[in-house]
């Protein structure tokens, strides 16, 4: 599989009026394969959002390199190409919606890219269909629910046909139904469209659904693996201010009480199945 994003010794410091601030990203080497679904977890201030902003050149490295599909993000001539490849979705849907009609909002990026209008029509319809919002094409965004607005924001990114979508805590402001809508949409994009997805989140159950889980702590990558393995290090994650999905936490408690159970039960189905074996 080819790489879509690659960082080499990526280091980043914010500079302030008083001088150089502490290091936010410290010597990060990370490669993201095209078509993969990667979740990034870390406590507030661990550097995960800063890392994400390097993926489409919103921020540029203080040291080291970031390559998007082989293009160096400091190369200004390639900026537009880089931003077309990597779409970003942020936490607050209200800050990302610019038009007063859903379909116009989704058309914003392709219009700015100078795409012919017939082609825009096709891109917009397709994007709205992908996120399940085609019925709302003529609606006013401010009357939609949080989950719907966030799906419109995702459609707006999709209309640029990016190869990779980076979502920075897209469900933080949503209720459980809104969260489920957004996560289902993301998974569908990855599985059916083959889009590369980088999901930054605080929700362990969302991270558990990714193919790969990267954990950041104090500006460094401290764990990198499949969720069912990474989440087995219950004490290690807790010492970093993180948690594990509750089905794993239960199994961990049972093990501490001397019961022999697996630790890789990331969801309710797997957990119930393992307990059934134990109890029957």
């Amino acid at each position: 599989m080819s790489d879509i994003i690659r960082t080499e010794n990526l280091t980043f410091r914010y500079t302030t009026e008083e001088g150089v601030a502490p290091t936010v990203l410290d010597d990060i080497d990370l490669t993201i394969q095209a078509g993969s679904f990667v979740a990034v977890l870390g406590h507030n201030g661990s550097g995960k959002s800063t890392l994400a902003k390097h993926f489409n050149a919103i921020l540029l490295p203080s040291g080291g390199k970031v390559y998007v599909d082989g293009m160096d993000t400091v190369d200004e001539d390639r900026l537009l190409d880089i931003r077309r490849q990597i779409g970003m979705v942020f936490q607050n849907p209200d800050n990302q919606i610019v038009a007063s009609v859903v379909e116009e909002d989704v058309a914003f990026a392709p219009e700015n890219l100078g795409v012919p209008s017939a082609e825009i029509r096709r891109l917009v319809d397709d994007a709205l269909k992908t996120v399940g919002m085609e019925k709302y094409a003529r609606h006013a965004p401010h009357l939609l629910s949080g989950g719907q607005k966030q799906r419109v924001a995702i459609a707006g990114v999709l209309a640029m046909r990016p190869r990779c979508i980076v979502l920075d805590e897209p469900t933080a402001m949503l209720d459980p139904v809104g969260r489920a809508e957004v996560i289902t949409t993301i998974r569908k994009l990855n599985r059916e469209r083959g889009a590369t997805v980088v999901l930054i989140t605080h929700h362990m159950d969302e991270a558990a659904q990714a193919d790969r889980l990267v954990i950041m702590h104090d500006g460094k990558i401290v764990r990198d693996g499949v969720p069912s393995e990474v989440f087995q290090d219950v004490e290690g994650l807790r010492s970093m201010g993180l948690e594990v999905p509750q089905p794993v936490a239960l199994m961990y408690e049972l093990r501490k009480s001397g019961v022999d159970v697996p630790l890789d039960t990331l969801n309710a189905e797997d957990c119930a199945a393992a307990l059934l074996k134990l109890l029957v």
Partner: protein
Amino acid sequence: MDPIIETKNLTHVYSQGTPFQHTALDGVAFSAMPGEYIAVIGRTGSGKSTLIQHLNGLLKPTDGQVLFDGEDIWADQQRTHQIRFQVGLVFQYPEYQLFEETVYQDIAFGPKNMGLDKDEIDRRVRQAAHFVGLKDKTLEKSPFDLSGGQKRRVAIAGVIAMEPSVLILDEPTAGLDPAGSAKILENIRAYHEEKNACIILVSHSMEEVAREAERLVVIDHGHIPFSGAPADVFSHVAELEKMGLGVPAMTGVFARLRAMGVDVPASVYTVEQARDAVLAALQKKGGGK
């Protein structure tokens, strides 16, 4: 004991008389006892924000009453004004409401408006800062130099400094990491216990409300379909899911086990309860052999 805060037949209609007319609350009877820890759960748009904004007089009922200590909060202007100090409301993402030059001044804003003297303001600011775990040296910093989690604690301290007997918090842990969330919930619990304050927590996390609250109040389409202890409320698995609320992860696991014919209790909603229930079931199985 009489409720500290109570709504009687509370109805609120937005944009009445326009094509956008919308009934957000429809004859709601809500009550909270002094020193009670309540969680309010409901989908976005269920009416829960409308309800809590009535409890400290930010919204005026279209119909019905809001009573504090048995008296209508809209009885006279003076009373409505006083209620805002008695019933503290911490909004969602309160860190965006910080505005003063120092953390100290920001926390002191509420007590100052209450007309308290300087010494009392100082005592309250320091005590409120203590409740939310802010250090003395942080008080002199600009709130804008703090991290997100710290800013939120400053905002909560600003409300606590008014020493409200009812403290309402709208999703106080949204956007925080697990450790940050746990710390904020600990701070709220400390205030609850030391001041015997009534806490009304609005949250989307079923795990969080299951762990923290003594009583849950469910809101759906402007009504309260049921309320009660977490074990009772979470036994309504199907209804809750229909309302888009779901149940805590552990309740879900145990509902599945029961559906597969395993004899385990239905009232499990925390990891600790689940562990104990599994250990008990194992013992029963071993003893039966």
